[in-house]
């Protein structure tokens, strides 16, 4: 009798224990997400609230979590003041957009060659491209500066675009390679049988199938270029050609004082295009970064 009845409570206890374990697991996961969100969002919160504080409140020794006196003066000053904010923004838009478009085209062509090319050095070149991506930007800055100097492109917007493309394209190529790898070869071969030459197959069959990849690559290059500080600071030396990150640093930081509130207001405005771009392609970006990860995708 005992032998028969003993497993029964064990069977009853197991689901209870499992449910408890599940609850603890969920709680742990939520705490983890909360901590990660705190680290990710608190700088944003600080940026937004500081932009709404007075200059005095923003720099006082005991910082306030929420502005004691809400003010839009920093935004007013940004638009109506002496700061060439419009010029910075225009330069940023021109260079980031140009880099995004050119980077997208180069990444697509390079990625296609890495994915479908039959040349002997395809694999070593693929990895060289990846290694280039691993080098810190600062390491590339010296040689890039010399190249642009010789090409008379220092202190020009095209020069800055070249700089942006140089660091964004290697990653973009790998991103696009993942998308091209996911396009079944049979689809391309069907187009070959239909009589289309290779370049037409790329433009009429393969690229339409990799639009999420193209958007992801373009947005990635745009965001990277828009946020880049070190290249404009090094390659541009006049304020009229400066972009937003470099311009803001140079304008709001002085020898004796930094206008934190003003800088945060400018940063808020600067962040908006990035947020719009990111949310617009968020889903395809996730798909883009995981392309090729699942067999048969």
């Amino acid at each position, binding site marked *: 009798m005992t032998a028969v009845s003993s497993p029964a409570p064990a069977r009853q206890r197991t689901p209870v224990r499992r449910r408890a374990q599940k609850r603890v697991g969920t709680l742990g996961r939520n705490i983890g997400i909360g901590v990660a969100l705190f680290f990710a969002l608190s700088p944003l919160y600080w940026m937004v609230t500081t932009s709404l504080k007075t200059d005095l409140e923003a720099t006082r020794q005991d910082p306030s979590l929420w502005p004691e006196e809400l003010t839009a003066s920093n935004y007013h000053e940004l638009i109506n003041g002496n700061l060439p904010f419009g010029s910075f923004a225009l330069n940023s838009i021109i260079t980031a957009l140009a880099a995004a478009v050119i980077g997208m085209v180069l990444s697509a062509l390079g990625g296609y060659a890495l994915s479908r090319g039959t040349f002997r050095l395809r694999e070593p070149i693929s990895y060289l491209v990846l290694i280039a991506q691993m080098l810190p930007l600062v390491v590339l800055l010296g040689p890039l500066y010399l190249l642009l100097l010789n090409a008379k492109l220092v202190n020009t917007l095209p020069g800055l675009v070249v700089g942006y493309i140089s660091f964004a394209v290697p990653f973009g190529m790998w991103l696009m390679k993942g998308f091209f790898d996911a396009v*079944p070869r*049979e689809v391309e*071969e069907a187009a070959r049988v239909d009589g*289309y*030459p290779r370049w037409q197959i790329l433009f009429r069959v393969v690229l339409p199938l990799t639009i999420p990849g193209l958007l992801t690559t373009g947005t990635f290059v745009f965001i990277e270029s828009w946020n880049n500080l070190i290249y404009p600071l090094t390659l541009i030396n006049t304020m009229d050609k400066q972009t937003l990150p470099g311009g803001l640093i140079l304008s709001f930081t002085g020898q004796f004082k930094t206008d934190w509130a003003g800088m945060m207001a400018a940063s808020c405005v600067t962040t908006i295009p990035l947020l719009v771009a990111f949310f617009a392609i968020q889903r395809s970006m996730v798909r883009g970064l995981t392309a090729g990860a699942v067999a048969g995708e």
Partner: protein
Amino acid sequence: MASISLRGVEKRYGSELVLRDCNLDIDDHEFMVLVGPSGSGKTTLLRIIAGLEPLSGGDVYFDDVRVNEVDVGDRDIAMVFQNYGLYPHMNVYDNMAFGLKRRGLPKDQIDEQVRRTAQLLGIEPMLRRRPKQLSGGQRQRVALGRAIVRDPAVFLLDEPLSNLDAHLRVQMRAEILKVHRAVTATAVYVTHDQVEALTMGDRIVVMRDGLIQQVGTPEDLYDHPANRFVAGFIGTPAMGFVRCTVRRTADSAELVGPGLRIPIPQQRAAAIPPDVDTVEVGLRPERLLLEPASERLGTVTGVVEMIEQLGSEYYVHVDVDGAVVTARAAREHRVRIEDKVQLRTDGSYAHIFDVETGAVYG
């Protein structure tokens, strides 16, 4: 329409030779099936005919014109791929019209050809649908339509039915044959399914390890296999093989083994070289019968290992001293597993192979 000739075709991937000295003539309007197990090189051979795979050696001729250097798009071929290869971003109409547009045909002619083909295949109602909105069978029809709409000289099909369920496969087989009759193109069809090969091909090429084993009509391959591999590959259930000794007397000959004695006609015995004593004997299931003993018929004795019920009849797998042969039996013959049975066979239908090379005698 075109005839195809392969002369000494070879294909190498690195150091690995995947096709060896392939010689084949495919007649105009013929339906030729390439069949063989996985890795036998049949798809590679098809891709070489298509021009999708460069040759490592040999020549390919279309109507006696060497096409080795002719690009795939200029060979006037159409191909149906195993996974359909439809353009996912185009609807059915555009999928079918894509190749015609490349040829610069006027819009109304393209429209006429696409609709006529769609009607032939019964896919007219789905012309505006995208491939992902279609079932497997419908996709296969579209792939077929895309291939025939261009009225190609050569029609290549690479395991087109392998992704379909058994019922649909049988239906599509008939459909493909109907289409082939309608378009009069030369067709080369790759499959690993020998039933598909037997039911569809005017002639069949059996391949193994990159070598053509035998080319012939379905009846040829079934009744006169060139070697042990073809004999075992063609036919369901497969031919059973038993090792035997050849016993010759002045006026008769018989094949003898443990539990086995099969008299064979003199001319069959004459085909076996006199110095050969041991041979491999192949017996088709329909030639092994559960019948009473008779003078003329040979006897194969063994133990029933497995019974396959087919409803109208059944197959009995019999262990003959370690070798398994299959016999076809009528429903009235009642046998059970572990039963000792005596099977009768007519020696004139026995296939006799060389033990070493597998080549057929006679």
